[in-house]
């Protein structure tokens, strides 16, 4: 009877052992393979990372020069702050450029409003009252529409509304004078 009992016990233990060992060994072998694969990847990527870093370091001077050039241009065109004093000088430069004895261009007022913050950029709205000849009015529109070019130092702006009145002169030879109020958005970072 004891023999039978022990025989059955041996059999059960054998089954248990084989089942547990085989199952666990598979997991162990897989984990070991994975670890070996990772060791190979570590060697490979150590090399790749240092090559990529070396590539970047080699070109860093060029990249930094480009960054500096862009930053310099953006200081006037798309500055970090609203920089309204520089903008005011820009607008005075417009008046200087456009006004002459035969074609008037007079900025009578500039009124800056509260900045508006956005996701990618911020806006400084302002309003101007101007008296101008028709020719200079169109020139003024072109200046605003062309603002923000990287070749110029003119602040990036956009006209959001214009209200203008023609002071129609009867004299064919004298140019019509336009009085207009223009609402402009000046952009910054």
């Amino acid at each position: 009877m004891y023999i039978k009992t022990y025989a059955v016990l041996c059999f059960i233990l054998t089954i248990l052992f084989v089942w547990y060992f085989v199952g666990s060994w598979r997991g162990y072998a897989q984990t070991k393979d994975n670890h070996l694969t990772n060791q190979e990847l570590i060697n490979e990527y150590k090399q790749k990372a240092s090559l990529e870093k070396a590539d970047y370091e080699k070109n860093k001077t060029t990249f930094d020069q480009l960054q500096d050039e862009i930053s310099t241009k953006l200081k006037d065109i798309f500055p970090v702050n609203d920089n309204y004093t520089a903008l005011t000088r820009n607008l005075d430069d417009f008046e200087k450029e456009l006004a002459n004895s035969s074609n008037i261009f007079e900025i009578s007022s500039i009124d800056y409003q509260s900045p508006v913050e956005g996701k990618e950029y911020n806006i400084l709205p302002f309003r101007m009252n101007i008296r101008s000849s028709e020719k200079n009015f169109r020139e003024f529109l072109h200046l605003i529409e062309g603002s923000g070019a990287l070749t110029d130092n003119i602040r990036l702006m956009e006209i959001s509304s214009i209200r203008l009145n023609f002071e129609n002169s009867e004299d064919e030879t004298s140019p019509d004078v336009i009085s207009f109020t223009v609402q402009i958005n000046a952009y910054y970072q």
Partner: protein
Amino acid sequence: MSQEDTNKAPQADNSLINPLDVQKSGVAEGTQNEVIKGIVDAGTAGPQEKLLDAAPEIDMSLLENATVQKSPILMILKWSSGFLVFLLFASFIFFNSQLSTRLDVVTSAVNLPNLSQNLESSTAEVIKLKTDENFYRFLQLKAYLDLFSFDGDAFIRNYDSIIGKSTSEAQRQVAKEDIEDVKRSLAQSFEKAREKIKVDISAPLASNKSRKDLEDLFLKSLQDELKAKSKDLKKNKSEGAQIESKNLTHISKLVGNKKLKSLLLKTDFASLSDEEIYALVKDMNKLVVNDLSTIQKIKEERVKWSEIINQIELSTVAVDSYYNQKSRYDIVGGIRYTSYDFDTNEKRVTISGETKRIDNQNFSMIARLIDEFNNSDLFENAEMKTFNKSGTFLEGYTANLKLSFDLDQGETEAKKNKKVSKK
């Protein structure tokens, strides 16, 4: 059975001898013990015979050399069971020490390496190294895309000069020369950006994770690295550090940008015409986030009021051929504007003025003007619902004009680009 039978003690079989009777045979009758005898008397007194001989004496010395007979099979089975239990226990200990952290206390005490922990740390090492590689690669990608945007701005300006109707011939010639240099630079930065973006962001980690999960893992790792570095730089208040911090934020928007990757990989820059390069630059600016692309987006959304005013004049001249000739207005009449009201937010224009006619056809003139505006590419929904005039048959009539119309939606740089690409 009767009541008397139940009260009477049972009588024993006389042939049987009760040992108690034998012992009690010496007791004289008629004594007080008779009662006792009567109690214990089983009535079995008979001939006294000994059945058994004297009990044998056991010789213990014989047992001293006696051994139990052992079964070999049983021994084997016992030993096997014990061995199997030991094996089971040992393999349990081994696999748990290698594949889990349950026995960390023991393994660390005896300095036994844990395979699962080694795998974890090697996996983390691979992720870190690949993230480092990705980081430097994306720094370069951003620089090449910035260069592309920078040259792209010059390309757009030159191209606009070449196709612009108001450009002088000299300006057009200069623009044509410049554009060739810019194109070469654009091609170089485009190819370099393509080389950087085509590299797989993930590593072939030995893992059960799917390809997509692995990619997400490496994307997240790179994003976290960029965020952490940007945050560190932000603490430094210097301008250079702030710009660097912002650049890293821009780079994080390039990571995982599938549309940008697809555009860079699918486009053969060398085979593009100038028009197609123009469109490509605009498309790239929409997908790339940097200051230059932001500026370009703002420019594209700008309304060109000078063109609006030009079109108003053209539409007016189509109705009043003497428009803007002051002397003619008083003689033959016509249209004269007194004010414009342009609103970018509403995309709406209101014109005020008056019409003067000698032949009292003011309302027809205004109606033709409304039709002209509606037929133009730039305007829609032109209307004026109230007409009134005053004057005399001899001196002519003057009618007030207050006309509103909408800008044709999308008449911005973006719409103009469509027209360019259609040419």
